């Protein structure tokens, strides 16, 4: 299909690695080899490299943005980078690798279509690798690329890479990750990053950039395609992907009711429900359930400023008109009627705790879910994930705990002041995701992914899919 080559699509990806894995160098290498570094930016980095007595240009300096980072030579916050190739444009969330900054990896991974995890070929899989893969599994990042870096320091030997790749795959399997690709690279020299290396004749897979250029993004149906893969269809067609697609969801951001004397008469009675399609495809005439009220109606029209649409796809910002005069407000979730769930008052979720103050039972929080903001209370902490995975799988590695500390990932039960259409994150990425907000100072304290049931209670929990 020529649209695949003529209209560049967008891929969001994140990078994660522990200290000194060469992550910033890999990012610098990707930018450099795709000719994304402009002359003055390169000059500035070359100048600083010389001032520090370096012999070669330190590509890592391209991405270390804040003064504290430059002074300490580390990366402390997610930095976003932009580059493109003729095939695609990319948004890169460059995430710091220190244990204490795991919250940034969670942040970067939450919007990522793909995650690159850096592994130092000399040390193989370390605790941070396991942590990053666990985050990828919890957030269901569609594609995980494990870049086994610094192979130049091992004289490009195949053996160490193969044993690390095997280790990665067996660990990924335990996490329920079926989408992990390993690539032997040297970010410093450039092997297999954007250009295939002649020094790794034993590797016939794609380069990191080739993978990034070709994998489907979430908006392109990555979830539906993965579901088709799970059903045993190796090369799904559009029809297979469509069949595997779940219904549609539209969180209502605003009710558009222009009340303006200057407006043309045809819009005097206009009432549109504005939002960004969270998933699926909305078509005019579709049956709709308004959550949490449960009222039913149909889609009368789909509007944009440039004209009406017959259908709207995931990712599009639109407004829809409904056939009946039902009560709909910001915070409501419009849902395809065929698969709409009952709203809930309580639910279980994985929570990545992102702040210094611990989370304890009976703590009050605000749940931000789509466009809804609802008061909630922590009624139970079911346990804390041991990311070393002593139990072999995520669910079997949740140890008892009564509080969550910074960077802990736990399973909690939340009770809501008002019902919300919270769904299983494994099936509904957008309507299964939420953040927790401190009601007192307004800070964001946790990332959450809802699961249908508590761990160990059957196959409905999303990690079991």
């Amino acid at each position: 299909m020529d649209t695949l080559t003529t209209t560049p699509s967008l891929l969001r990806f994140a990078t994660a690695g522990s200290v000194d894995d060469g992550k910033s160098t890999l990012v610098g290498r990707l930018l450099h080899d795709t000719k994304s570094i402009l002359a003055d930016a390169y000059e500035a980095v070359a100048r600083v490299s010389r001032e520090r007595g370096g012999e070669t240009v330190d590509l890592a300096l391209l991405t270390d943005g804040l003064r504290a980072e430059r002074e300490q030579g580390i990366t402390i916050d997610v930095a976003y980078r932009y580059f493109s190739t003729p095939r695609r444009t990319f948004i890169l969330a460059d995430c710091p690798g220190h244990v204490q900054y795991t919250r940034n990896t969670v942040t970067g991974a939450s919007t990522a279509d793909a995650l690159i995890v850096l592994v130092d070929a000399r040390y193989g899989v370390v605790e941070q690798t396991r942590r990053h893969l666990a985050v990828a599994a919890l957030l269901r990042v569609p594609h995980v690329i494990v870049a086994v870096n610094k192979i130049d320091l091992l004289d490009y030997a195949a053996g160490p890479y193969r044993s690390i790749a095997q280790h990665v795959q067996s660990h990924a399997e335990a996490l329920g990750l079926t989408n992990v690709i390993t690539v032997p690279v040297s970010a410093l020299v450039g092997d297999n990053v954007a250009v295939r290396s002649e020094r790794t004749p034993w590797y016939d897979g794609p380069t990191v950039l080739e993978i990034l250029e070709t994998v489907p993004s979430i908006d392109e149906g990555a979830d539906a395609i993965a579901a088709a893969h799970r059903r045993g269809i190796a090369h799904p067609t559009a029809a297979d992907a469509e069949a595997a697609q779940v219904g549609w969801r539209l969180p209502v951001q605003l009710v558009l009711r222009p009340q303006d004397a200057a407006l043309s008469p045809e819009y005097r009675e206009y009432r549109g429900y504005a939002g960004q399609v969270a998933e699926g495809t909305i078509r005019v005439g579709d049956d709709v359930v308004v959550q949490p009220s449960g009222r039913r109606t149909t889609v009368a029209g789909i509007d944009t400023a440039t004209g009406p649409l017959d259908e709207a796809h995931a990712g599009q910002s639109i407004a829809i008109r409904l056939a009946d005069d039902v009560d709909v407000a910001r915070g409501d979730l419009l849902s395809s009627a065929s698969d709409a769930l009952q709203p809930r008052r309580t639910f279980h979720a994985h929570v990545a705790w992102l702040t210094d103050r611990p989370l304890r039972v009976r703590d009050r929080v605000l749940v931000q879910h789509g466009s809804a903001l609802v008061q909630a209370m922590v009624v139970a902490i079911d346990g804390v994930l041991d990311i070393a995975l002593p139990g072999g799988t995520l669910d079997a590695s949740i140890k008892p705990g009564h509080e969550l500390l910074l960077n802990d990932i736990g399973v909690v039960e939340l009770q809501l002041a008002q019902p919300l259409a919270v769904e299983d994150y494994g099936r509904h990425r957008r309507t299964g995701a939420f953040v927790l907000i401190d009601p007192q100072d307004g800070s964001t304290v946790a990332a959450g992914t809802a699961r249908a049931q508590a761990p160990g209670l059957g196959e409905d929990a999303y990690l079991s899919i």
Partner: protein
Amino acid sequence: MTDAPAAPTGAPARLTTLDALEAEGIHIIREAVATARKPVLLFSGGKDSVVVLHLATKAFWPGRVPFELLHVDTGHNFDEVIEFRDRTVERLGLRLQVAKVQDYIDDGRLRERPDGTRNPLQTVPLLDAIAGHKYDVVFGGARRDEEKARAKERVVSLRDEFGQWDPRNQRPELWNLYNPKHLPGQHVRVFPLSNWTELDVWRYIEREGIELPSLYYAHERPVFQRDGMWLTPHPSVTVREDDAVETRTVRYRTVGDASCTGAVESPAATLAEVIAEVAATRITERGATRADDRLSEAAMEDRKKEGYF
């Protein structure tokens, strides 16, 4: 496993990069407005703020844009830009507030800098205007690709009572869930174009047929070279005796304080030519044209901490 899964043949209609960026920008604007008590857009007539305004017209169609515009006027602006600003406000039926740096200089609250540039002087009038008008959500056209410190800025970014940005204590921003909560006296800055590049902005301007001030396109102008930039004689610029003023064909990549915003030599007189030029350019936007960013490697970070936009 070495095979990367490929997109299915005949994949469902996909969004182009511009479609995706536009949809994201509209989502951000709607989200911020829905939770704001009194939002405002910082509007200079520069291309980025023009694009944010364009997105807002789309976000609230068929109604009009539900917020005011605020311009912090250095008094060093190009006439064409001010004329364009006023015409745009008029066309859309919006209200414009202007905070004037000159007023602060006249009554002694601010002093001119020795180098004559007024960009750093915008901070105080901006913060006073935000407090005075009780704005709680302030839209801006900043993009993360402009500069290294901005690469770490959130889409929705908290500012304290002094308008300060605390880069080490930023809220994590997850999925497309933006947290605009703030305490009395604080406000949030919102950047709908966070994920756009300069080239995306230009391609979008072309796709949407958006009008810009004429000085973005090549024109003949008297200029002289200073610190490697082409400055133009202007009431805000002292032309020294040894400055050789000559007429050249130039255009501007950013519009701002005329005393420190340089033109670039360019024959690009049309949108298509500008896009071709931007696509091929080898110098970043700010490096080529903003003297105040060159002061130090951390220049932008320092000003942002002080509440600069």
